[in-house]
């Protein structure tokens, strides 16, 4: 590894017109996934790192070099950031080989040397036999693999992945994900994603962005064990109710007392913010109160539906506005004649609710 690859990426910068004040760091050789809703500041972050955006204040450092600060602004072509976007963006007038050789050529390599390097990179992504094809002759998945080969052929110090699987079909996305996991591991990588699968296969660390701020960051498993935002909880596939811890196993949230089991690893403290976490599959919906074992029974109002595999994910809103997702069968839904705005009861067994201390607001180690 070269010296430059030994240092990671640091962003501490504001972009006023976009209302962004972003602080995060990627440790050398690690992959940090950025998650957050649309408009949260993910593309601003991408622009700050790639060099398309100039920060109004603060600084961006990559691989030990200043990308942008009060006195310098390194243009895009001098940053050594390998960029892979949603679309492959192959140059249509060049064949596959020359697309991949473009970077080495632009950096001063001779034609033969650049093409040798390009062939090597194409072999790494399993497309050596397509070298002489035109981009228009490739499938979406092939084109994206060529784009990865092209980005890595320049030996970038930082790899910037901006939803690289978002435009691919499921099969192509799966093989691309496997390929990325192999080719990107050990490189300092920033990954913007909307997909939980990307988190589990590619990310070492996760940063959650909301309203122009990094609201939490840290090792993936820690961040997802106590999702700091509803968006993060959604990606982690759990329901998340924010409230205040009471007696053991009790959180007052959603206008009611939530009964669950304290997590010994992240024990909540009475009077402090706490999260109640439970799976959508553990939530059942009823029109009348059920009898039997101790349960949580919350009045709720249906706010939306979406297909979820063979089931239907019903979103309901509790009295205080917090949302809960419940996975029900189409048959159960039909029998209840559910529609948007209907009032009902959401029921969760206490044994299925995990209660944890809410993560402190703000990213660790910012500023």
């Amino acid at each position: 590894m070269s010296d430059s690859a030994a240092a990671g990426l640091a962003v501490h910068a504001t972009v006023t017109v976009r209302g962004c004040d972003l602080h995060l760091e990627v440790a050398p050789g690690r992959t940090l996934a950025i998650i957050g809703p649309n408009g949260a500041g993910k593309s601003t972050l991408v622009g700050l790192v790639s060099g398309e955006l100039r920060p109004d204040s603060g600084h961006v450092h990559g691989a030990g070099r200043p990308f942008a600060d009060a006195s310098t602004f390194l243009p895009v072509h001098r940053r050594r950031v390998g960029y892979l976007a949603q679309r492959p963006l192959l140059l249509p007038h060049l064949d596959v080989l020359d697309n991949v050789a473009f970077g080495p050529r632009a950096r001063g390599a001779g034609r033969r040397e650049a093409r040798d390097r390009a062939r090597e990179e194409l072999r790494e992504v399993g497309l050596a036999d397509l070298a002489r094809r035109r981009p228009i002759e490739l499938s979406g998945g092939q084109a994206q693999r060529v784009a990865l080969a092209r980005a890595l052929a320049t030996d970038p110090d930082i790899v910037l992945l901006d939803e690289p699987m978002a435009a691919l079909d499921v099969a192509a996305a799966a093989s691309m994900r496997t390929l990325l996991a192999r080719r990107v591991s050990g490189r300092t990588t920033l990954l913007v994603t909307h997909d939980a699968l990307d988190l589990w296969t590619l990310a070492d660390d996760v940063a959650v962005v909301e309203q122009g701020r990094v609201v939490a960051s840290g090792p993936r498993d820690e961040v997802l064990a106590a999702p700091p935002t509803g968006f993060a909880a959604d990606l982690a596939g759990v329901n998340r109710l924010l409230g205040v811890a009471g007696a053991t196993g009790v959180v007052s949230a959603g206008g009611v007392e939530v009964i669950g089991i304290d997590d010994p690893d992240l024990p909540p403290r009475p009077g402090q913010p706490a999260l109640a976490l439970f799976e959508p599959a553990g939530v059942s919906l009823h029109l009348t109160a059920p009898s039997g074992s101790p349960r949580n029974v919350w009045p709720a109002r249906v706010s939306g539906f979406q297909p979820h595999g063979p089931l239907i994910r019903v979103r309901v809103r509790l009295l205080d506005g917090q949302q809960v997702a419940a996975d029900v069968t189409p048959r159960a839904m039909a029998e209840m004649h559910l529609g948007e705005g209907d009032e009902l009861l959401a029921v969760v067994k206490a044994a299925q609710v995990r209660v944890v201390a809410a993560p402190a607001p703000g990213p660790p180690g910012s500023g």
Partner: protein
Amino acid sequence: MSLAPDTAVPRWLLVPASAALALVAVPLIGLMVRVPWAQIPRLLATPAAQDALWLSLRTCAASTVLSLTLGLPLAVVLSRLTGHWAVMVRTISVLPMVLPPVVAGLVLLITLGRRGVLGQYLSVWGVDIGFTTAAVVIAQTFVSMPYLVITVEGALRSTDRALEVVAATLGARPTTVLRRVTLPLVGPAILGGTTVAFARALGEFGATLTFAGSLQGTTRTLPLQIYLQRETDTNQALALSVVLIALASVLMVAPTLVTRRSR
């Protein structure tokens, strides 16, 4: 020749469409009927005709090179401008397209002629542009360059800027991006714009006559020669017209042939 079945048009549309085609085709056929085909070699061999032909080709080649070297950079800059200034600069850039050619010649004469606003100072240094072959080239460029600029600028505006950004992330300096990404992407438009500009320069008449005059071998291009001979030697005028029509037709077809082959 047939209409594609899935693009059905109302039948009545064929009537005005045919009239439009006839408006253009019938006069061309009329010319073909009247042209003394057997005499063409002899008519084209006269010194006046030869001078006009070669002068036209030389000046058009020069003005096309000028249009490319100056117009391409202008098109690139225009395509990146935004806001009020962009509207103004673009309007000025393409104004000659809608200007009556005689007015174009007049503004050139007033500005660059011997006693012109700038020309009077150039005269002091011994540079006289008016009524020289250089004046022909300037008049042709003035009138034809906007066709190249507007064609290329339009193409540049519809290209995907993200391709240029990706090229930059790969380490390409702005000049490399221009040379290896931006211009190749609009290659067909450059070719098309260049041929249209060449064709427009070839047909230039009003601005040339006003600014450069009509001196055989120096400023009397093909269109001027045709105009001069139309009554005294109609046959020669017709023969030269056939040459112009042939050149124009080749220029129209050439870019599509080249573009198709590169696919």
